[in-house]
């Protein structure tokens, strides 16, 4: 099977932070001839939720078959959290009764 390999830390950055970067990555992926794409996460130090969310959203809508290799455990957890987002509840209910001061 003809896989096209992308080492994401070299393609983008070691810190996968910006949502737009994930979007640009998939724009590039969609432009490739190959159907099967392998994303190598070796060398990645961190990934933001924003990046992970955009990655998952674009992957789910992609015309390619994408698989990930060398995924650090911390990043797997971030993907899990983003994929299974609970319904939003008020994170800071204590703010409702906070005093309002003029500064």
């Amino acid at each position, binding site marked *: 099977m003809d896989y096209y390999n992308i080492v994401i830390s070299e393609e983008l*950055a*070691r*810190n*996968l*932070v*910006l*949502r*737009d*970067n994930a979007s640009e990555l998939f724009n590039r992926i969609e432009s490739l001839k190959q159907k099967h794409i392998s994303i190598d996460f070796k060398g990645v*130090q*961190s*990934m*933001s*939720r*924003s*990046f992970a*969310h955009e990655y998952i*959203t674009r992957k789910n809508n992609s015309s390619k078959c994408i698989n990930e290799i060398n995924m650090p455990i*911390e990043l797997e957890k*971030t993907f899990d959290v*983003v994929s299974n*987002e609970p319904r*939003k509840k*008020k*994170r*800071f209910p*204590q*703010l409702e009764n*906070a*005093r*309002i*001061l*003029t*500064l």
Partner: protein
Amino acid sequence: MGQRLPELVRNYSKYSSLMDASKQTGSVDLSRITWIYPTTFLPLICEFVRDQSLDMKLPEDQKVRDYISTLIQRRPGQDCCATYLPYSTFPVDKKHFDPIMDHICNLAGEVDKTGNFRYILGELSDNVYQHSKFNFAAATAQKYPSKGFMEFCILDDGITIGGSLRDVGYEYDDTEAIDQALNGLSSKISIERGYGLGESIEYFINEQKGEVFIASGNGGLYMSGNEREPLKFILKEKYCGTLISARIELH
């Protein structure tokens, strides 16, 4: 008589007072400053970038004067800065953002045992790019080993949290807009959006047992992982952008 405001809030207030006084003289008077924290220093830098005609009276205290000169003149990566980071501006071209992350996280060092500080910094940085429409954005940090904390500040000169929400039809004033954003409201349509800011604040106050102050437009908010009550603020002087400051304990 009320409880004294937290120092993080007073640091912001000091910046605000300095700018207010400069309206009369055209000069920011730091002559009597004996100590300056990132939450005072970084928004001042933003003002000087925005208004090149603004003058500064340097501190009379030589140590403080040298410190400020170093912060302004040194660039991240120059020399070995063990306890502070010269302010780092966010490149408009996102491709060049990665080194900035490394510099700030290297300073965090022992604070970031779990790697979560890097994660949170990523979230806050992406918020700047996604929402603010900034011309100038920057971050800085300073460790105070003898005092036992690190103070971190990130800011932009963009459309504010309230402005970002009002752009898509949410009619909240600036103070309430910060509350709403922390609790998940986003200017982006997707229901999966709106987690980054709240999660970041939760990290600072819960995981790190630290403090956070946010100023955006005419709104402000303070929260702490210690005993102190949360506070909301109406800022008499509008902050033209968004500033987020945090203090984290050094262990």
